């Protein structure tokens, strides 16, 4: 049945709004640079990746094979050992929930430690999973304060720590010092521990920069969550979670009616997002991503130069496209969809953000400042 004209008009209006706003999307880590038109044909089918991608399902309209290829690529990028498992999630939060869930299942009495710069969704996860938790101070640059962590873990050294580490904080792009975290656990002779890494944006950046800090399975993590709709770009939110298989096996539960061993958090799962990720990984390739990230970081440096000229104290971490600067007025925050926290704001030079894009925003900041001066 065709839609009535007024409903079609509403959809046209929505598209106009979304297209316009995409041009001014500067503050959130979502890439708008993608073309998945070869995949549109699959929107005609009731596809569903229900269950474990590594176990054959009775529901045949799935993309498990493509999902496994995506996971294999991410496993290489994150230096996962052969003994790994994972699936394509609905986004970074699901991956983080899976990681904390695994940690809690392994250590039901464990204590989760996370920094105050951790994404707010983690507080929700901790409440959902009913796991004890302690927030640790952050350093001014956004990394977890290792002195505070050490002292707090020391007091609870008989309780297994579940460390939620940020590999790129949301606001400042800070990577927690994983080597330092491991060193604390070793110094305190804590054998039973779990480390989950939230690498939402930076998990697709750090594999392609020349000198990344420790961030992946080589650094001793037990699981990692990476978003798919951020640096890679996707019309639907998605992500990847990878974990050590020996840990996952402990929570496996048989779900007979779909004939699969389901260790994923959700029941029905998106079958299209693995295709988007597969398409992006295959079409761009590793060299393509390396060049893309080089471009993103160069644009970030351009933004810093322009913002410095306005004396807005911009800065970024070495391997991050997140540029932090002094918070501008609310109308500009809204116009450019900037993320703000207290007195700072940030812009993120995602793949769709070009130098001209940055220049337009900086010009509006300059105009705003001029207006402020002339009115005072």
């Amino acid at each position: 049945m065709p839609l009535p004209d007024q409903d079609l008009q509403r959809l046209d209006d929505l598209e106009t709004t979304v297209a316009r706003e995409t041009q001014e999307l500067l503050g959130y880590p979502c890439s708008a640079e993608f073309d998945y038109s070869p995949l549109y044909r699959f929107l005609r089918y009731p596809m569903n990746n229900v269950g474990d991608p590594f176990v054959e399902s009775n529901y045949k309209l799935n993309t498990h094979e493509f999902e496994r290829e995506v996971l294999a690529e991410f496993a290489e990028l994150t230096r996962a050992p052969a003994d790994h498992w994972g699936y394509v999630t609905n986004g970074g939060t699901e991956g983080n929930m899976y990681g904390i869930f695994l940690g809690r299942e392994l250590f039901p009495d464990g204590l989760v430690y996370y920094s105050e710069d951790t994404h707010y969704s983690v507080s929700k996860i901790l409440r959902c999973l009913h796991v004890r938790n302690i927030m640790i101070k952050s350093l001014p640059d956004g990394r977890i304060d290792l002195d505070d962590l050490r002292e707090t873990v020391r007091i609870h050294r008989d309780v297994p720590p579940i460390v939620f580490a940020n590999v790129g904080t949301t606001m400042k792009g800070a990577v927690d010092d994983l080597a330092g975290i491991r060193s604390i656990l070793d110094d305190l002779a804590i054998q039973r521990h779990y480390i989950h890494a939230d690498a939402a944006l930076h998990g697709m950046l750090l594999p392609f920069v020349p000198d990344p800090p420790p961030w992946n399975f080589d650094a001793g993590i037990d699981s990692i969550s990476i978003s798919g709709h951020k640096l890679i770009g996707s019309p639907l939110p998605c992500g990847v979670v990878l974990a050590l298989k020996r840990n996952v096996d402990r929570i496996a539960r048989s779900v007979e009616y779909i004939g699969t061993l389901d260790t994923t958090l959700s029941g029905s799962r998106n079958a299209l997002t693995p295709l988007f990720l597969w398409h992006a990984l295959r079409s761009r390739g590793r060299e393509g991503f390396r060049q893309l990230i080089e471009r993103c970081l160069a644009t970030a440096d351009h933004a810093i130069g322009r913002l410095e000229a306005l004396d807005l104290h911009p800065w970024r971490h070495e391997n991050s496209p997140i540029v932090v600067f002094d918070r501008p007025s609310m109308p500009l925050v809204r116009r450019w969809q900037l993320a703000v926290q207290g007195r700072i704001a940030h812009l993120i030079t995602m793949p769709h953000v070009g130098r001209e894009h940055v220049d337009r925003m900086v010009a509006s900041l300059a105009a705003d400042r001029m207006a402020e001066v002339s009115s005072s």
Partner: protein
Amino acid sequence: MKQISIVCEDRPNLIAEMIETVGREGVNIETLDSDAIHGTVVAVMTVDRYDDALRALAQGGFVAISEEALLIRLEDRPGALAEIAHRFKDADLPLRSVRIIRRSGGTGIVALTTARTDEALALVKDVLIA
């Protein structure tokens, strides 16, 4: 009467904004106390419609903390939180969650929850805000 604590950076008209925010939802404030700690205001209010007030404050951009949590003030230095955690450990009183609400001017405001709030109150009475 249930209590709500609001923690935010001090600024002009802050209390008026809080009152207006909950007032718009038809919530009556029964009591309201506030204290400024190194640039941070901690306001404690009791209201007639608790859930509506919490929702209104959160939607209005305020950090509103329910009465399940104890608010304490700490020196902003490494190990300060650990010392508090030590008290709970010694008292065999497990902490459910510890959340840093705000840090400014050398002071941190921290929200604690435990399964036994009454016992916890006694443990942190020297640093208790609300």
